[in-house]
């Protein structure tokens, strides 16, 4: 496994952090890398297990994801070692990489187990997806109809596509990002703008009160 290049001291790092950094940069990198790899595998397994209830994956597949995530996180950590600034424990910083790797790898598995195409719009799901009970939905039929009209009439094609996939079909944002060749942040921004437009439409048509101070409808 590749070793990081030697660099200067890390601002804010405590003694434990310094041992990690020195170990990963120093002459006995294999020992430190082995120790870090063990921690990453342990963290990856725990994270996969934490998310397993939402997955249609069997034990061996889950363990495979954990090992791949730990391996890829290790490479990323060594590549970015010089960016560690000591604003957390080294291990917390390192775990961040493995959590993100698990998150991304699980998202990629979504499409292999998806039941249906996400192109079909199933508006009858909207109340349930938005947390409405059948009774709530009946009482708020006008509001829900207005949401649909806002999605149809106010959103751009891309905002509508993202809304339908994320809200009506419950596609995980990272899975959708991979399918659309973009990233979580860009889709979040798309939905942020869509939510604001929908809210503005609902306010303009008397379904909601005006935006509170600090918000823009």
């Amino acid at each position: 496994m590749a070793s990081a290049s030697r660099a200067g001291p890390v601002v804010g790092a405590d003694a434990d952090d310094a041992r990690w950094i020195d170990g990963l940069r120093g002459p006995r990198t294999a020992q430190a890398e082995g120790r870090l790899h063990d921690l990453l595998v342990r963290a990856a397994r725990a994270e996969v297990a934490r998310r397993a209830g939402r997955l249609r994956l069997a034990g061996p597949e889950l363990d495979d994801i954990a090992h791949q995530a730990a391996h890829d996180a290790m490479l990323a950590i060594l590549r970015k070692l010089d960016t560690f600034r000591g604003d957390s424990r080294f291990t917390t910083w390192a775990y961040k990489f493995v959590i993100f790797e698990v998150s991304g790898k699980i998202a990629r598995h979504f499409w292999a187990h998806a039941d249906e195409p996400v192109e079909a719009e199933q508006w009858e799901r909207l109340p349930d997806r938005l947390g409405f009970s059948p009774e709530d939905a009946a009482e708020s039929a006008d509001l829900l109809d207005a949401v649909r009209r806002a999605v149809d009439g106010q959103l751009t094609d891309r905002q509508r596509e993202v809304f339908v996939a994320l809200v009506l079909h419950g596609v995980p944002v990272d899975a959708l990002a991979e399918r659309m060749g973009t990233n979580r942040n860009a889709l979040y921004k798309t939905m942020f703008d869509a939510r604001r437009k929908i809210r503005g439409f609902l306010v303009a048509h008397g379904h909601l009160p005006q935006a509170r101070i600090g918000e823009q409808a």
Partner: protein
Amino acid sequence: MTGRDDLLRFLETDDRDAGCERTKELLHAYVELVLAGNDPELTYPGITVHLRTCGACVDDFEGLLAAARADAGPE
């Protein structure tokens, strides 16, 4: 809590929202403040706002918090 309340919360937007990219960049520091018993909102208000509405980042936050809590540090 009704569906209507959930919908209103879902549609609320806040200009202080840090977004996913910034949140991912600083998540380790945010988690460290939580572990230390400090209020992370004082240091990172935009991330706190973001974590109110981004389920994917909340999932990462909870995973990182669990990993860091379980960590006994290097031997």
